[in-house]
Every structure is written in C-alpha cells, then in structure tokens.
C-alpha cells in the first residue's frame, strides 16, 4: 500500500502532503522535516530509495525524485514494487505536465486543489488506480469542465440558492 505522497521544494517547504492513513498535522510536519533532512544529505546520482523504518515503522520505505526545484516523495510498504513506484511517480509528474503545460513549482503552489484532484485519480486509499497519464488527464479535464459549467449555472449569492 502507498502510505503517503509528499511534494516539497528544495528548501523543505511542503507543497503537497497526502497521507492515506490519518496522521495528525504535527506528525505530518515532523515527517516532512525529517524526510527533508534525509533527502538533503543525499548526493546526486545515487539510488532513490530510502529506508524509513525509523519514521513510519518497519518495512516502510520511500522513493524520491527531484524534478527541477521539487522533491517528489512516495512512501510505501512491502506490498508495492519499488520500481513500479518510481514509474507511478513518473505518471504523476507526466500528468502534471499535461495539465499545466511545462509544470513548475508555481503551478503546484497555486493549484492546491487541482493537484489533489489529479492525485486522487491516480491513487485511492493507498491503492494504485490508474497508471496512464493520458487517462488521468482526461478525467481531470472532465471534472474541470463539470465544475465550470456548474458554476456558471449556479448564482453565487445566497438568496438565490435553492
């Protein structure tokens, strides 16, 4: 199972935190900090896996990858394949690229809800749902269209609300 997904920048500022089992906010922040410390200490061109037993219990490990200024981190346990997780991360980033055209950190910063929407199409409750960035992008487009149409139909003042 995938335990969580974290995106943070190279300063350690979190841009996306999603855990699939409840973690109190303080714990989340603490995990982000400790993971950032580990990632910082790692040189370039080394393996992308880190054992995270000390952070999240036995058999939990994480895979990370840097894309420009962002660290993408997937936390998972032994029922996931390490290399498949790297591929999934690639799917996530590809989808972001499709949805934002040349995605950069600012996109991630200003599209908090959309990023979550994209992630939810890929992973549900810690299980991989979709592995084609094409499909995910289509689904996200469909949702965005739906929201736009609905919004134009519903007046925004309370009195008018049915």
């Amino acid at each position, binding site marked *: *199972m995938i335990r969580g997904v974290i995106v943070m920048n190279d300063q350690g500022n*979190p*841009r*996306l*935190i*999603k855990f*699939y089992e*409840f973690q*109190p*906010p*303080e714990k*989340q*922040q603490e995990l982000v900090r400790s993971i950032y410390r580990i990632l910082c200490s790692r*040189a370039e*061109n*080394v*393996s*992308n*896996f*880190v*054992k995270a037993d000390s952070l999240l219990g036995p058999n939990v490990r994480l895979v990370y990858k840097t894309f420009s200024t962002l660290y993408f981190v997937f936390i998972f346990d032994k*029922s996931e*394949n*390490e*290399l*498949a997780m*790297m*591929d999934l991360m690639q799917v996530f980033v590809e989808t972001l690229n499709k949805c934002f055209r040349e995605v950069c950190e600012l996109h991630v*910063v*200003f599209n*908090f*809800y959309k990023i*979550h*929407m994209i992630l*939810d199409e890929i992973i*549900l*409750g*810690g*299980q*991989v*749902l*979709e*592995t084609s960035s094409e499909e995910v992008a289509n*689904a996200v487009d*469909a*949702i965005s269209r*739906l*929201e736009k149409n*609905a*919004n134009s139909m*519903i007046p*925004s*003042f*309370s009195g008018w*609300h*049915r």
Partner: protein
Amino acid sequence: MKGPSLMDSLFQRSIDDLIKSLRLTPPGTEPAFIAKAIEEVRREIKSSDPHTKSSALQKLTYLHSLHGIDISWAAFHFVELSSSAAHSHKRTAYLSAALSFNPATTDVILLLTHQLRKDLSSPNAHDVSLALSTLSSICNPDLARDLTPDLFTLLSSSKVTVRRKAIATVLRVFEQYPDAVRVCFKRVVENLENSDLGILSAVVGLFCELTENEPRSYLPLAPEFYKVLLDCKNNWVLIKVLKIFAKLAPLEPRLGKRMVEPICEIMRTMGAKSLVFECVRTILTSLSEHDSAVKLAVGKVREFLLEDDPNLKYLGLQALAIAAQKNILAVVENKDLVVKALSDSDVNIRLEALRLVMCIVSEDNVMEICRILISHALKSDPEFCNEILGFILLTCGRNYYQVIFDFDWYVLFLGEMARVPHCQKGDEIATQLIDISMRVKDARSQLVHVTRELVIDPALLGNPFMHAVLAAAAWVSGEYIKLSRNPFEIMEALLQPRTSLLSPSVRAVYIHSAFKVLMFCMHSYLRLNGDNSSFPSALIDSELVSDVEVDDQNMIVTNGRPLSASSVTDHLAQESILALVNLAEINLGPLAGSNEVEVLERSTNVLGLIKLIKPMLLGSLDNGEGDQTKGELKASETVKLIFDSCSEDLGPISVNAQERVLIPNGLVLKENLDDLEEICGDVKLPLLTSFSLVRPQFPEASSNVDCQGKEESEPASESTSLLAEHWKRHSLYYLAPGNTMATSNDYPPAHDPKDKVTDEAEDLVKLTEKSIITGKTPSQTKPRPVVVKFDDGEVTNVATNRTETKAVLISGAVNKVILGDEATAPSSSRRKPPKSRRVTDESSFGIAKIDQSEHSKAGLGGSKHHGHGKERRRRSSAKDKEHDRKDKQKSDKHRSRHRADKALEAQAPVIPDFLL
C-alpha cells in the same frame, strides 16, 4: 451570530490571494499572518453563500495541510458544504474532510453518512468517485457499516471508473467493518474475471493487500490468480499477482510447482525491470527450492548489479540478501560485484553490500574479508567507517568467535581496528579484548603483545574514543604481565605523564595494573635472589625464573646499556627494580592527594606496597646484613602473599552461576531490611567529596622521594625518550628486531599500511580466487584454540549456526503467523484477522448463507467459504436472486460456524484438483 456582510463576501480573499500574500510575508512573521488569515476565515465561514463558504474552506484546508494548522473546529462546516449542489463546492468540502478528519475522533463524520450515501448513488460518476475516495479516507466502523450496501451496489456498476474506485474502497471498509466481507466478497471475486484491465488491476491490488495479513484464507482463489498470471500481460497486474503468489506458495508446495514455469517465462521474456525484479524476488523468497528458477533469478540479479543505474544495483543487492538466507552460494558467486559495491558513492548501496559481505564470512575467508573491509574503512567517511567496524565486530564475535580460527590474528586485528582514525567502537573492542583474554588461553601471549602496543603509544591517550580500549589494554597488560617480554616497559607506559588525560575510572585501571606489574617484578626478583639468600627454594618455579632472566636481559638491551654478562644480572636486576619502584613512587606520589576516590585508593595501595618493599631493596643494595634480613624476609613473604592472591586466573563466569550456589542454611534472602534503617539511621553515609581530603602523606616515602628525586627522575625521562625513539623507528609494529619470542607471522598483518596503496582489483582477484575453494576447508596450520564457553546457555543460542539464526530471523516470524492462524482460524472468520468482530443485530440482518454446493456452481473454482453473505433485508431481494435463495437456508450462528469448520477441512482436497 451575524454572518459576514455582503462587502465581506464581495471582497473576500481567494485561496490564490492567500497564497500570494503568504509568499510575500517576511520570514518570521508567518505565524502572525496565518493567525490573521484564520480570523478572517472564521468570519467568512459562517456565510450562507456556498461560494464564500467554499473559498473560506479552501483557505482553511490549505493552511491545515501545508502549515499544520489545527482546523478541527471547522469540521461541521465541511459537512454543511458537502451538501452543496455544485460539484466544485462538494469537492472542496470532501477534500477538506479527507485531509483533516480523524476517523477515530472526529464525531461529525457520522453526519456525513447521509450525504455520502446520496452521493454514492448519484447518477453523476464524478460525485460517486468523490464520495468513494472520501469514504476510503475517513472510513470508521460506523460509516463502513452504514454504507456497505451502497458499496455493494457499486461493485457491479456499469461505469468502469466507479467500479474500480469501489473495489479500492472495499479494502478500508473491510478493515473497519469485517462483516462487510460477507456482503461484498463474492462480488469482489467476480470482478477477478473482468476483462477490463483497470478493474482487474484494482481487484488484484485489493487481494494483494488482503493476503498480507492472512494468506491461507485466499488459497482457494489460487486458480483465479493463476489464470491472471498466465493470461494478463500488464506489468502492474502481474506484479501484484506475483506478490500474492509469493505469499500463497509457501502454504501449498504444489502451487509452487505450477507457478515456477510461468514466472520463469515472464522473467525471460518481459522487458520491464520492475516486473523482472518482482519475479526475482518471488522466486528467491517463496520458490527457493526450485534450483533452476533460483539460478535464473540469481543470473538476473547479476545483470542488475552490472547496471549503471544505482537503483537497480541497490535492489539487486537486496535481492541477493534475500537469496543469502537460503542459498549462500548466490552471494559467493557474485562476490566480486558485492565487494565492488562497497566503494560505491551511494551509502545505501555500500550498506547493503556490507551486509552481504558479512553474510559470506566463514572461518576460511574471515581474514581476507576483514583485511579488505578495514582498508575500505580507512577510505570511508566516519559514519560508514564505523558501520564497517561495527559489522566486523558483530560478525567475528558472534557465537563465541565461531568464525575465528586464528586468535593471534584476530587480537592483532582488534588492535588495528582500535587505531582506525574514526573508530568509535572502542567499547565493543574493549569488551572483546577482555573476553578473549579470559576465554582463549592460547591467545593470551599475542594479546599481551597487542595491548602492549596500545598502552605504550602516548598518542592514543589523547583520543577519548580510545579510552575504553586503553582501559582493556591496561587491564590485560597487568593481568597477564607474566607473559610480557618486558614488564619494565609496561610499567613506564602505565605511569606515563599523559595518563592524566584519561578519565578517572580508566586511570584507576592503569594504576591497579601498575600495581600488578610491580608486584610481579618484585616477586620475580625475590625469587631470583632466593637462590642465594634465605628465600625458600622449594617455591621457585624454574621456568619462570629463566623467563625473568631473559626479560632482564632484554631490558638491558632496550635500555641500551652495554651489559650482557649473566654474572651481573643479580646486581643489575636489583638496580633496575629499584628504578622501577622509584618510578612508581614519583608518578603516583602526587595522586595520593587526588580527589577522585578510585584514583586515590589505587595509588595509595601502590604507595603502601612501595613503603613496604623499599627498605628491603635499599638494604640489600647497601649489602647491609643483620636485622635488615629479617625485614626483608617479612616483606618478601608479604609480597608473595599478595602476588599469589593476584595471580589466580580470572575466567568467564556463566550467567547462571549464581543460581547454582546453594543458599546457606539460615540465610533468608527475602528478609525485609527496613529495620536496619532504625539501627543505622544515625550513621550518615559520608559524602563523596569527603574523600577528597588530602590523606596524610607517608613521611618515609616522601622523604625518600626527596632524597632520591634527582637521580631517579633521570632514568625515567631517559627511558621515555628511548621509548619514543624506538617507537619512531619501528612505526606501527613495536617488535624488537630479531626477537625470537615473536609469534611467527605466517599470516599477513591485519592491515599493512601498504594496503592503502594496493589496487582494489588485486584484492578482488585474491578474494575471487579464494572463493573457488571456499567449499573446502583449507588446511589449518594450527588447530583452533579452545574457547571457554558454558553449555548452560550463557547466551540463548549457543548451538545455532549461522544459517539457522537467519532462518529464525526471517522466516520464523512468518511461519509463526501462519501456523498460529491454523490453530485459531477454523472457528472464526478466516478471511479477516479476528479483530473487532461485531455481533450484529439479527433482527435487522438476515443471514444469507451460501452453501458449499452453491459455491462450486458460482464458478469460483472450488469451495470458498466466505459465504454468510449478510444482506439488509430491506435492500430489495430482486437485486440479487441468489441471496434470496440462500435466505431459505438460514441457520443459527452455531451451525454456520460448524459449516465453516467443515469447509476448512474440505479445503485441502479442493486445490489438488487444480494442481494435479
């Protein structure tokens, strides 16, 4: 309370505005800014306008998720907004709930039940998806119970995405509410035969998670999984199926036979590394008895290790580590690559390689491996260096030094390790030094040689990490001084000025060792003199005397005095022993005023001894006769007495030794000693500082120092400088040239300084050469010395060998779980761990029981006793005819349980049909 005004709504800050201003806040003022923003949100959130409310919630959730702000107070507003007709508002509300609700404590979750049910049955697929993903995030037992029927419906939804998400959600619902299994399991299984890849992937993923806990329950589904394994060509699905089989195969050996071929086929033909790696892992973990498959897998691992990609290398090493548990040859075959990985730039890879290298250590190769490792340690960063040292110590020390044959080499090697610049493993090294000295009698002479080198090196005293080792070295030097070639030199080393750098406890060991050395020298001297004096000749051990003679001559040589004739030995020995005594007196005299109790105590001991023997020495030097002889005799007897008490061999003691001591009659161990309080109450324990009061000096001793100070200090300093010079000349190895007593070095030194330069490739060649003959035991030049150990389980696993311990470590836990289940499973639910089984209300739930025959009809390939499909009665029977039919066979709980038992018994014959 009044909500926000229209103006507030119109000029509300959007989430984008919030993020922008948050980014512009100067560092340090962020908390204040966030607090202000929260205040704003508190006002806005009360708005009845869903748009305003939604914006407010967005900001709130953003702050919660990325800045860790507590927003539990707003939980109700999320519930409120979730009923909005606009999908975007609903999404905001649900996402906020998913990110911030704690399923265990947030009580408003129950208020979401109705809305979730509504959305789960919405015609809009996106609403349904949203509800499903929210449900899986915030699922608690109540929610799971109430929404199980809706989930059940969705499991056969015609919309693929919805069905997929419903299957994924099932996992959480099962976890929270095990009874849902009865309702949903059959539908879930049916989806295994779905042609849609997305759905198949979801179901297989779900089973992969479920088998994690109790694989035995899913054995009956093996045929379905097997079909997927054969037919499916999707990497994601195959990986998950392999993971399921990895858990099932150990339970049913016949399954393994069937699986092996398809898996090898996939491994040969498929290109995806992830899939190949999964195949390798499956074979190495679960199918390790199929030799050809293992061979193929190890071949693939080798390919991984040869790749440039550090990830593949890392995973390859991990796979090897799995293989090593059952098949050490797999590691041996790839030894070259493993050793190469030790110098990889990636610390992950280095650690894995190190672990593997330690796996292959045996008595035949321990020397080479240690030599290579120590040269790596010298090149590595401090952290990894200590990892290496730690691993070496652990492996070599395991099971009473099981892999060590040549203890002379090993103690030399321990000395080398202590000298590695970043070494922080001093404690462990010290423990092993002392442990070996007590357990392995044959190693003692070499040990004394090694510890001497440690003790006489003044440079080591400055390194606090070395102190533990030095304490051990000093103890060994003192304890086994009779094996030393030159006690005088040891004495100088123990008393050298730089010992002031040591911590008091270590220093105390030094002083006490000096005491033992002095005692030994005195004793030998007296015995030597005993020949021509009144010393009882019967006590003289001729062997020892000759030893001492040699020693004395050695000392003469090292002191550079041109005297070698044995005729002068007597006189000279006397002179030098006096020098020794004076050396001790000068160095320890000041310590008698130390404010460290241990140091003070020990040095007083030595000074007391000196006070006793000095007059005797001086007297015989002056050749004074008469009443002097009497004193001498008395002193010599005392010396002998103390020496005897010190010279008894210390040995290791079994931890159980105390238990075997019979409790003497009349001794009540459990007597309450509180009464003593009354008696001793007024006797106050002296404070520790009270010991620091300067003890009265021994007037005689100090006066002696005064009068002889000048001439005595000279030889002392002279010898130190000689020592230093000698030290420089012989660098690391302090072996006297042409010393016949040196142990023949027919093995390479543990770490030759040259090794730093030698090419690693050379090491490799040697190591791989060696690997060819690892199977055989090379002719040991010396028999392994006896290692004292106790049979009564000093440590729990005295007899276990290496492979056994590993098997216990890794597979033992797994086996235990499985065997344990077998004992407990039959009566209770076999699909779920028996946690939180709820006795449900029979009046609201009809128990729909699936009969055994029903199962086979349903085409599930054999008995699946997941039966007992529980259905809400009010949920239409038309929806599921099958369930209705089964309602007829309603039976009481007891009987159904009984059936389950039977079903379990029937399980065994079912699989063979498929397998054979």
